[in-house]
């Protein structure tokens, strides 16, 4: 039986990685990811986790090690944030192109300059097109559960893709909160040992990562895209099995009081809970407000998302990363394109909030909803909480 414990979320994620029985951890410390890899390093040093901890000299090397170890057949883990992700990103494309089921927590943080160690989704949005499956956690329990789920999906022979589990830096990673920690036997029953389809083996030599001449590159990308699209069904199937085993069920898009809502807030990550409090408060005041929380970011759950919001007149879409002088923020662009394809004419308000650690309060959400309910959407996005 899972035990309810109070724990810092980063430590709990480290424990979850340990429960997944990883063989290799290759990571470079960077705030706010640090506590996860510190904890894993301790677990290895204390003999609680039988794994190779590779203290690399950079994130670029971390991902390179992950590629080598996964190709050799080892279950592999890494974690990073912001500038560390930026340095690593060159190699992230190679991990997905080689179909290597690496799991990584990105503890989301703003990109410099100005130098900021605080939370937003700049790194997550930068990683959008790397070909990694991506989920994002709302709270500590999800950060633990989604990390275990990530290995289940990534290593499935029908998928074989790297998996990025996002979690907000500080406002989630550094929180102490109650978490049900699964038992090792429960995780073992859910997550079978990693059995690579092909691997680097001196007895049976294969080549990983050769040149793709113009006559095969397009086909390789097509094959990757097909696998990526097909992974959605496995993501959902693995959540169903997770729910049956652990009693906590997850969906690609979750709604909160959205059924009869005229205005729906769209969020990702740990601010979703703050938005829920705003929904409750506005409902008390008689406003028909709901919430749609996107948990699966890639592959994007288009049908599930449209089903969740199709009844709304107004959408309040929160973006937490800049798309300088684009039509809207990266999340809102995705949503506008889905609405356009389906001929839906919702009034879409796009707010940028919580950049570089700026607090986003219940009241901020209430103000966004009030604005959406009483005015016509401007063509441009609006950055809120700006001192002028």
């Amino acid at each position, binding site marked *: 039986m899972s035990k309810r414990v109070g724990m810092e979320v980063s430590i709990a994620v480290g424990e979850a990685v340990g429960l997944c029985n990883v063989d290799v951890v290759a990571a470079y410390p960077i705030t706010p990811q640090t506590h996860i890899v510190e904890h894993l390093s301790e677990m290895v040093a204390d003999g609680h986790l039988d794994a190779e901890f590779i203290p690399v000299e950079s994130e670029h090397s971390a991902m390179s090690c992950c590629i080598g170890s996964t190709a050799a057949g080892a279950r592999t883990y890494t974690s990073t944030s912001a500038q560390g992700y930026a340095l690593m990103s060159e190699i992230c494309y190679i991990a997905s192109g080689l179909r290597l089921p690496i799991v990584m927590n990105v503890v989301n943080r703003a990109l410099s300059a100005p130098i900021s160690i605080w939370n937003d989704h700049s790194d997550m949005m930068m990683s959008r097109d790397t070909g990694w499956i991506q989920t994002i956690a709302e709270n500590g329990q999800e950060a633990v559960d989604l990390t275990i789920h990530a290995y289940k999906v990534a290593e499935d022979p029908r998928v074989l893709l790297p998996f990025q589990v996002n979690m907000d830096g500080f406002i989630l990673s550094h929180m102490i909160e109650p978490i049900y920690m699964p038992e090792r036997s429960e995780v073992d029953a859910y997550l079978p040992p990693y059995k690579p389809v092909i691997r680097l083996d001196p007895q049976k030599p294969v080549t990983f990562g050769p040149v793709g001449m113009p006559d095969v590159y397009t086909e390789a990308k097509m094959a990757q895209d097909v696998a990526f699209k097909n992974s959605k069904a496995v993501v959902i199937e693995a959540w169903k099995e997770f729910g049956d085993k652990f009693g906590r069920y997850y969906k690609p898009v979750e709604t909160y009081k959205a059924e009869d809502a005229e205005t729906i807030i769209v969020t990702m990550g740990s601010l979703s*809970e703050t938005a829920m409090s705003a929904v409750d408060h506005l409902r008390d005041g008689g406003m028909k407000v709901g919430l749609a929380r996107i948990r699966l970011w890639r592959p994007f759950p288009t049908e599930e998302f449209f089903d969740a919001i199709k009844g709304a007149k107004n959408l309040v879409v929160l973006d937490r990363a800049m798309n300088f002088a684009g039509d809207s923020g990266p999340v809102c662009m995705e949503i506008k394109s889905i609405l356009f394809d389906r001929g839906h004419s919702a009034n879409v308000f796009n707010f940028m909030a919580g950049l570089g650690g700026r607090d986003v309060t219940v009241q901020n959400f209430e103000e966004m909803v009030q604005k959406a309910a009483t005015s016509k959407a401007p063509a441009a996005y609006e950055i809120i909480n700006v001192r002028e």
Partner: protein
Amino acid sequence: MVEIRFHGRGGQGAVTSAELTALAAIEEGKYGQAFPSFGPERRGAPVMAFVRVSDEPIRTREKVYEPNIVVVLDPTLLTIVNVEAGLREGGVVVLNTSKSEAEVRKETGIKARLALVDASHIAMDTMRVPITNTTMLGALLKATGLIKMDSLKAPIENRFGPIAQKNIDACARAFEETKVEG
């Protein structure tokens, strides 16, 4: 939901105080949340840490702007930080000070209910260090009854290992010696 703001200086253990409070609440089966004011930590600089305790799941991650309780670990902060900022009606300020209520009110202008304890003295006496985190938890418990002393034991033991008992003693002594005004 009860919201607490801890004020201390980097190194005095304000963050640890907040964490232990939340862990004790979770130990009691309640919902608890603790977090620091995130940033590059510097020894000696004013720091804050926040706690929420509730019977319901806690659905916000914003900083605590309107606390029910403020705990001040270092008396020298009183003249440079407005520790009373945002304190809710009927709230209480728990102070580490060797001064009397009248002196504190005169020097700081604090109008809220006060709970006073000479935590620096107790910490030096019991543990030989001027770190007042666990000591001030005794004062917090006396002033508010928010959590039970017993619930703090396991979190303190997990955190402090061989020096846990001294911390528990300091906490218990502060509980006895804290004067809750009004």
